[in-house]
């Protein structure tokens, strides 16, 4: 378990590098492949709760290191001129969002362990949609307004869908890692039970 976890962590760090090379798709509402969340979601269905939470913590920490913006009021801006500076999400928020998405994936773990990874692949899209939607709602909440547009929903929808297409590949890599480090992801349902001959 520990060796597998560290290999997954290595894969995740590699994904943080790879994501720098993934461009947005300008003609499709600027949708993109969310590689890091995808790998996290696929990995979280293969881990137990404590492993998933640890992974959520590390992923969220690194994710926020690149994404969070510095609030305007921290930089000595004249608050008389800017009476209502736009709030930004606090560093560390995505740790919790990753955990929520991870728990969604944990929900389909019994099916996954029966060898039906296809269901899990579909659920990655649902979990990613949920992650992005919650992140947006959180942003609306702290900024005190609600401005959900059709284009935003399309962006979330297409990004989740495109990312999901890559989930079989991620599962394949995870199965290879599990095999290499002798971690047992699937323990039943993979092989057809031979009925005893009467």
């Amino acid at each position, binding site marked *: 378990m520990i060796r597998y976890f560290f290999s997954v962590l290595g894969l995740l760090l590699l994904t943080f*590098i790879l994501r720098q090379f993934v461009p947005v798709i300008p003609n499709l509402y600027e949708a993109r492949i969310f590689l890091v969340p995808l790998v996290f979601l696929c990995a979280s269905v293969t881990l137990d*709760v404590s492993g998933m*939470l640890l992974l959520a913590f590390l992923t969220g920490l690194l994710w926020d290191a690149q*994404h969070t913006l510095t609030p305007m009021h921290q930089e000595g801006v*004249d608050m008389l*001129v*800017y009476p209502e500076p736009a709030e930004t999400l606090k*560093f560390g928020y995505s740790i919790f969002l990753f955990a929520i998405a991870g728990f969604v994936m944990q929900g389909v773990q019994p099916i996954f362990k029966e060898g039906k990874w296809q269901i899990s692949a579909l659920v990655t899209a649902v979990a990613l949609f949920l992650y*992005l939607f919650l992140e947006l709602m959180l942003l609306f909440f702290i900024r005190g307004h609600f401005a959900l*547009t059709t284009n935003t929903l399309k962006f979330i929808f297409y990004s989740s869908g495109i990312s999901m297409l890559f989930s079989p590949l991620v599962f394949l890599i995870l199965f290879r890692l599990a095999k290499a480090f002798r971690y047992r992801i699937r323990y039943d349902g993979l092989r057809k039970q031979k009925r005893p001959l009467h």
Partner: protein
Amino acid sequence: MKPLNLIALLLFLGVGTWVLTWSPHTVREVQFTYYKAITPFLHGGSGIDNFARAFVKEVEHSKTLERKLQAIQENYEGLKIIEGRFLEMERENAQLNRALDFRERTPFKVIPAKVIKRQPSAWWDTVTINRGEPAGIGPQLTVLAEGGLVGRVDKSFDTDVAEVVLVSDESCQVSVYIEGTPEKGILSGQPGQFGGDPLLRVRYLSKNAAIQPGMRVLTTGSGRLFPPDIMVGTVVRRIPGSYEDEALVKPSVDLHNLNVVFVLTGDQPNETGDKAEDKE
């Protein structure tokens, strides 16, 4: 729930909450460490990003060419493609010349920087540039391009990269005035503008403000963020409100296709809002 899982969950909640309480200094340290590790790949990633954008442009360009080529003889097909590529190179050349010219013309002391990563985040309009602390770039410095205001530096690192938050982002607020009127307001981006040209919103205008589409919007210089009289955009539409009016503004800079930007260093001709106030 198993006791071990419960303990893990409680531990997770505790540590997660602790992270939320980190000071800005600690956050910056973490971000600095992250960017230090990721910078070599950021430079590499920009190549792929540019390739993808060039590919999309090429596809769009090819469609236009196809329509033209149908009207002429097949013998000219190859020549037309070459001509198309030549035009693309000429356009790039003109763009670079304009950028160079802008640097010479501007009264500010500016540092040119290349955009190496566009839109790394889902909800924040930001770009990454290839100049950071070693070049004298620090947080909150104004970023310009040929045409006007681009945004402000959000964070910079000693690995020679910096993150710029664009004027189309909601968190980038700019104190502006509308030329030829006494109207002043706060301009910021609007959320959820995926797949189209972004429009900016100016708030806190007076009721029944006498503004017309096409009027220029410039920075006031108030608030210690941006120097005065920098072109931001032009008014597209006035939105009447119950107590105050708002206006939609088209940015003067093509924020989707930024290649070269200029970061204003501290030596600016006028750092106060006096000039804008004098105009009133």
